[in-house]
């Protein structure tokens, strides 16, 4: 036996200390980004929140490590796995996927939605549960009817998919169009909402 083996802490001891750090960091206003994952019918989602509100929802296919690294670079490296701040978001998402919720009430932090893309992303909740719109219609909603391609980019870079409903935006020919979570996830969300896709 050597010193390092003899002094190895158990995983449960470190987990308890981590939980204590999450709380202390939040109390001291040092928890700039809290995150957790959530298992859903469309796969594992990463949820991240600042003290302002939910700032990022990410699909596993986006690369969760990559997404967290982007958050550290764009927002703050003070990032901790700290589920408590995301309890309400997780509950609302569970309700949504169970068919018991049509819109989300949690506060959002829009700091990743900038420029025209941000304007488009802010207008997306106008497309209500169970309905769809075309990229051209959303361009008109955002006040730039010619900016159809830019709307496509805005949907593809939506930092808050599912909660901000870019999945309700389809191509003018009725095809699904792309989706940050993959077309299967887009079809699943539209089916869940009972929308004619």
């Amino acid at each position, binding site marked *: *036996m*050597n*010193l*390092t083996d*003899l*002094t*190895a*802490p158990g995983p449960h*001891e*470190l987990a308890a*200390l*981590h939980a*204590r*750090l999450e709380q*202390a*960091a939040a109390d*001291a206003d*040092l928890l700039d980004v809290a*995150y957790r994952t959530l298992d859903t019918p469309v796969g594992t989602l990463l949820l991240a929140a600042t003290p302002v509100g939910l700032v990022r929802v990410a699909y596993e296919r986006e690369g969760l490590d990559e997404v*967290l*690294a982007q958050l*550290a*670079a*764009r927002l*703050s*490296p*003070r*990032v*901790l*796995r700290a589920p408590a701040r995301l309890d309400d978001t997780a509950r609302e998402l569970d309700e949504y996927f169970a068919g018991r919720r049509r819109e989300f009430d949690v506060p959002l932090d829009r700091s990743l939605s900038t420029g025209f893309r941000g304007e488009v992303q802010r207008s997306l909740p106008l497309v209500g549960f169970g309905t769809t719109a075309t990229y051209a219609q959303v361009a008109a909603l955002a006040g730039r009817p010619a900016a159809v391609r830019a709307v496509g980019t805005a949907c593809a870079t939506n930092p808050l998919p599912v909660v901000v409903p870019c999945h309700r935006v389809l191509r003018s020919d009725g095809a699904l169009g792309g989706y940050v979570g993959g077309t299967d996830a887009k079809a699943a969300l539209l089916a869940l909402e009972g929308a004619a896709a």
Partner: protein
Amino acid sequence: MSTRQLFEDVVATHGATVLRVCRAVLGPHADADDAWSETFLSALRAYPDLPAGTNIEAWLVTVAHRRSVDVLRGRARRAAPVAAVPDTPHGDADPEVDLWAALATLPDKQRRAVAYHHLGGLPYADVAELLGGTPEAARRAAADGIARLRTHGLLADDTSTDTRGGHR
């Protein structure tokens, strides 16, 4: 934009090392948990302003040293009775329990030198800065501490000074 590691990864990578150091200095009890928590909270506060290229582990061990000194000062103020520790090894008891007890019997400087160098991976020059004195004195204190732990029969003879890497 700098590509600073997530603080979550800092905790995951170095949490166990910092806990070992805190426990070696303070004993494997609530005081060590307090020092660990204060270490990472202080580190979280300072983290965004840390110069690029900082040796994160050495930095954390240094912070842990300061926080453990704070905890000891608090302990002295409260004047809480400290549990007596056996100064002789007892037979076939749990070697881990015995190790903490044996560490507690070391003189403060030896215990810290062992903790910071052997458990925390801090080079002797850095240990010397924390403890005062020369790097050579820090090396001697750690060697004397390890020798005393061996007299308790706790460490195999090949537990040399290189129980872990990080001697830069």
